[in-house]
């Protein structure tokens, strides 16, 4: 299964089993979404369960908050993560705080799906990775899968979660894993373990990281597309890296992370988002506190540069296997 099919399957399973689940967003209804994630769902479950909205992201989330407060479970799509900002107020000031501020009278079981990240020549408005703008907000959960298997299991878990979940979909790997070489041949998910996705209902619990590759030399923390790029980088550098796929950024599985860093004593954090105040900073702050006496080198970040995501220079912006490999070697020096 591709990641798109896996996401669609998750929504299909939940639409079929839970009448309170409802799906809406721009172009998601009749057409099935610009990335086709909801293709066929309206035909199968009806217009009252899967429908198109006007181009107003704050309305999409605001309506969903009203429905969720009533006990429904909206799973809405923002067409690109770059377009979530008109809804930022509804997400951070409303959805995130409704349970707390009403002392549980109203809750907000809501999923906001959005394609994230670059690598598709989308320029600055189809490439952003806004995860850190959500991890700073108490009350939200933030999830990002790196394989079709996890995409389905995490999305079902997110829809079943009692609290609002930001569900980021790394669009570069919708159709196959990506190892950082854009000129290389594209690989389909069918040829990858992570492409094996169970039929029907299953859950990948939120809040649990996954050790993507065991290793002893250095810990690499990554999520989404960068999990696969990091894998390629470690291979290229010939470093015995332990690669952890975080899967959920908030709440964070610090236990799995610190166990690894305490073992390796070295750590590189990788993400596509701009560096300053990116999620890498939070990881480093936590790790240096929990693993201070185990660290044998400074923790390093390989990230997008602190600039808008450029179009023509995309591959100079994207954290390449070469850049990651350099960091792996650097952090491995004694």
């Amino acid at each position: 299964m591709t990641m798109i099919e896996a996401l669609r399957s998750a929504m299909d399973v939940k639409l079929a089993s839970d009448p309170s689940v409802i799906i809406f967003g721009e172009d998601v209804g009749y057409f099935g979404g610009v990335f086709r994630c909801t293709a066929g769902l309206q035909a199968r479950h009806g217009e009252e369960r899967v429908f198109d909205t006007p181009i107003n992201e704050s309305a999409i989330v605001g309506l969903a908050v009203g429905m969720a407060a009533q006990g429904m479970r909206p799973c809405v799509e923002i067409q690109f993560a770059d377009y979530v900002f008109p809804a930022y107020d509804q997400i951070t000031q409303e959805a995130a705080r409704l349970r707390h501020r009403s002392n549980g009278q109203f809750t907000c079981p809501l999923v906001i799906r959005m394609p994230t990240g670059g690598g598709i020549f989308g320029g600055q408005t189809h490439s952003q990775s806004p995860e850190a703008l959500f991890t700073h907000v108490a009350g939200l959960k933030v999830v990002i899968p790196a394989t079709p298997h996890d995409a389905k299991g995490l999305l079902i878990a997110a829809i079943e979660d009692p609290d609002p979940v930001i569900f980021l979909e790394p669009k570069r790997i919708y159709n196959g894993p990506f190892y950082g070489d854009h000129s290389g041949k594209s690989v389909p998910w069918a040829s990858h373990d992570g492409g094996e996705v169970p039929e029907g209902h299953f859950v990948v619990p939120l809040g649990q990281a996954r050790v993507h590759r065991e290793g002893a030399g250095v810990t690499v923390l990554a999520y989404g597309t960068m999990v696969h790029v990091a894998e390629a980088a470690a291979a290229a550098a010939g470093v015995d890296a332990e690669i952890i796929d975080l899967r959920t950024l908030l709440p964070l599985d610090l236990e799995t992370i610190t166990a690894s860093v305490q073992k390796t004593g070295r750590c590189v954090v990788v993400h596509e988002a701009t560096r300053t105040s990116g999620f890498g900073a939070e990881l480093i702050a936590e790790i240096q506190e929990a693993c201070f006496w185990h660290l044998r080198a400074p923790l390093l970040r390989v990230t997008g540069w602190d600039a808008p995501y450029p179009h023509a220079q995309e591959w100079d912006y994207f954290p390449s296997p070469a850049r990651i490999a350099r960091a792996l070697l650097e952090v491995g020096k004694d």
Partner: protein
Amino acid sequence: MSTARLSFPRPPARPDQAPDFSAIVVPQAGALPVPPPDLDAGASRPFATGMIRVLDDDGRAVGPWAEYLGDLSAEPLLRGLRDMLRMRAVDRRMLNAQRQGKTSFYLQCTGEEAIGCGFQRELSPGDMNFPTYRQQSLLIAADYPLEALMGQLYSNDLDPLQGRQLPIMHSARDHGFFSISGNLGTQYVQAVGWAMGCALRGTGEIAAGWIGDGATASNDFHSALLSASVYLPPVVLNVVNNQWAISTYTGVAAGQSETYAARALGYGIPALRVDGNDYLAVIAVSRWAIERARNGHGPVLIEWFTYRVAAHSTSDDPTAYRPRDEAKAWPLGDPVDRLKTHLILRGDWSEDRHRQAEAEILDEVTTVQKAVEAHGTFVDPQPISPAEIFRGVYAEPPPHLRRQRQEMGF
């Protein structure tokens, strides 16, 4: 060459000037008919630009909307009067409490009591209001226990919200009152979403959105109207036009719009403008709009025309930006006085009984207040556990919140 110059809306009078409401046209009571329940936007234009009024200058209930209410017994009107008096007593006592430092903040709805008191009495159980901070009258008319209401204002252990929210930011699901947000506008589109849920689930319930004239400028006002216009859910969208937004004259939010009600017509949503200081007009139009929504005729917007008599809040001093006696010049009068006059005219009330009722209600409110204050005020706090901070951020506390709670010492 160019003659393009900007326009800056200005209020009719500033502190050094005499109040001036000459620009406000007050149509005769009884002039507008009762439209059919399937009224559409086009046909609603006279209602959106005129003003529905029932009580005339002498306090008589006149015209088609009075007839729509039918032969009212005294009971609902007396209840309405008592609701408003109770509202006013609570406002008065709590303003006082804030002045004494017993709470950090308060905010009155003086002059606007008829709107929430009347509207709420027309709702049914299960219907949900999405109020702003100035709709405490909805709670009063929903018979929300004063203990809970005041407990919230004192952030003490009677507070259903455990001190988490600023005073006045109530939440009372069982009384059809959605959790108030301090961020203006956000709740308006949520009301539309809730109403969509009602329709999708077939509950027969409706939602009511509330917004101030100033906050109609917010984006969510637009997103609410747009969504309501597209999906036609059972929602009543209320605009409380009290002429001011803190220090800002309503003209700054209205721009060139004829009325706030007229704004809805552009979305194809029918709209009515109503004398908000006329309790009978309030219950009549509320009943019509709520029934209409419940019966599947879709959204409707109501502009309640009124005046914010008090300061914006205890942090505000209106004499800095408007004439001190502007409220007295307000052409629609006082909602309590007008209902009282009507009841006396009907022979169901008297000045004496009114004075007596005022005193009784103030007594009752003061008694509850004392009892609630015994649970703690800002002057004499009985602290809620700090660990409360962490409860309810999520359904289950995740590891980092458990660690932080420990770090806090709990």
